[in-house]
């Protein structure tokens, strides 16, 4: 059983790294969702005996993180007409390298960290720390609000995996509470993104400081990239 846990942990780590390297917002969201499913299954196989409370937690976490949240986010992408490309501040390759270094640092930290009790797998701590870091990196290094939500999901997955260490001590109620928080947060973020998008025509977080009480004047409103390109094309056509 232990090596199955290891495989799932590494799968979760690779999915997190994939989210740093993927080009499309929807792919990034699905990578985070798949990681949520993997962490849910991990919780199931870490436990020795299966009981009702466990099954409820696992099932609800898979449904929420693997189905509801990505469905909701893809819906926001569609209705908000979000452009497909991830716009990173830090390039894809560099992000991957930083993610890899983060895993190295997490391994070093895990070796330095002695636990008072035996845990199921030596990889739980480094992978969960690295996943949390990858989530933070995604949040700070991506321009679109949707990718930031995906980063938040990855961060939560990291915390969830760290909880596997305390598998005996962490009661079902706490897990359910965390899950509810997550769902509420993603819901709020989705609605907010939708509304920001409606009011401003873009969800570029680098320009959030232009948010004002009243709607910004025409002078403040910068057209989003796609609009600008379309304008350019129309001008070209007008010229020719």
């Amino acid at each position: 059983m232990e090596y199955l846990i290891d495989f799932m942990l590494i799968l979760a780590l690779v999915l997190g790294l994939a989210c740093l390297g993927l080009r499309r917002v929807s792919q990034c969201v699905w990578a985070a969702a798949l990681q949520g499913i993997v962490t849910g299954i991990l919780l199931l196989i870490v436990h020795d005996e299966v009981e009702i409370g466990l099954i409820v937690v696992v099932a609800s976490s898979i449904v929420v993180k693997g189905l509801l949240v990505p469905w909701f986010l893809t819906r926001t992408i569609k209705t908000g007409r979000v452009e497909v490309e991830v716009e990173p501040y830090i390039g894809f390759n560099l992000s991957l390298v930083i993610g890899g270094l983060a895993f190295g640092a997490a391994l070093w930290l895990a070796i330095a960290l002695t636990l008072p009790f035996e845990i199921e797998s030596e990889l739980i701590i480094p992978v969960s720390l690295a996943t949390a870091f990858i989530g933070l990196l995604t949040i700070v290094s991506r321009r679109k609000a949707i990718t930031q939500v995906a980063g938040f999901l990855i961060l939560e997955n990291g915390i969830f995996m760290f909880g596997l260490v305390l598998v005996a001590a962490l009661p079902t109620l706490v897990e359910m509470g965390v899950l509810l928080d997550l769902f509420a947060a993603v819901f709020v973020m989705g609605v907010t993104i939708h509304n920001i998008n409606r009011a401003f025509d873009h969800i570029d977080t680098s320009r959030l400081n232009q948010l004002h009480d009243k709607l910004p004047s025409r002078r403040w409103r910068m057209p989003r990239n796609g609009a600008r390109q379309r304008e350019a094309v129309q001008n070209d056509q007008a010229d020719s």
Partner: protein
Amino acid sequence: MTAGVSSISFVIAGFILAPLMIGIINKTKAFIGGRTGAPFLQLYFDLMKLLQKGGVYSVTTGWIFRGAPSVVLASVGVVLLLVPITTSGAVFSFNGDIFLFAGLLALARLAMILAAMDTGSAFEGMGASREAMISAISEPSLLLMWVALAVITGELSIAGMLGDGLNPAWTSASGPAIVLLLVALFLLMLAENARIPVDDPTTHLELTMIHEVMILDHSGPDLGFLTYAAALKLWIFAALLVNIVLSLYAGPLWAAALLFGVGMIATAVVIALVESTMARLRMIQVPELLTIAVGLSALSAAIAVGVR
């Protein structure tokens, strides 16, 4: 380490069967494309034909151009001697032969690049430049892969790493490291052998020219040598891949050898499937693919060191 009869016969089988693997790939691609395709043994016929011809040499080329095909074939041939089949042991192996492996492949590449530059053709120079770029990124991946295997098995020779030591590692904490390694090795195999996501082996078109354009000016036996060396190189990388997968199986050697044959055919079919379903990547995206390979092997090495 003494060379067993089995390891020598496996190497001879490699020398004989390597062109057949290319044949299987081409036949599968033709089948998927709805064509009849060239016969399985086409590359043998081509090699026969080329060896009977005379060479044509441009007056601008010198001894480098004439010597390079022999150097390439010799170094790739020696590399094949280092690769075992499951637990058979290699024909010769010593601690640190991983560097001989990487070094000989680099020597073959250097000879090819120099020969391409020697022709003075702008096309060949461009192909050489691209080959150098790709190998500069793929070699770290190869070496990191050897590091990971060395840490996992505690051995320093290729035959030792791919031998008995790998079987218990699958079910230990370093199991996922081996899986990551396999993915990295597959990407590396495609890149090193100029297969489709990186290079297109069927054309000399300007856009796809890496390997094919570098052998454009060679003719006769020289071209035969280079083509045969390319087939051997593909065999070597596929053999590494199949060996690592086969380390899951701990049975008698004859059964393992049989499975090895099946595995090589399966690898050829998988390569053909990749080539039939994917388009070649833009040149600017090739380093990104190889960065993924480097990242995966680095991750694998990190896990191997971390859980040791």
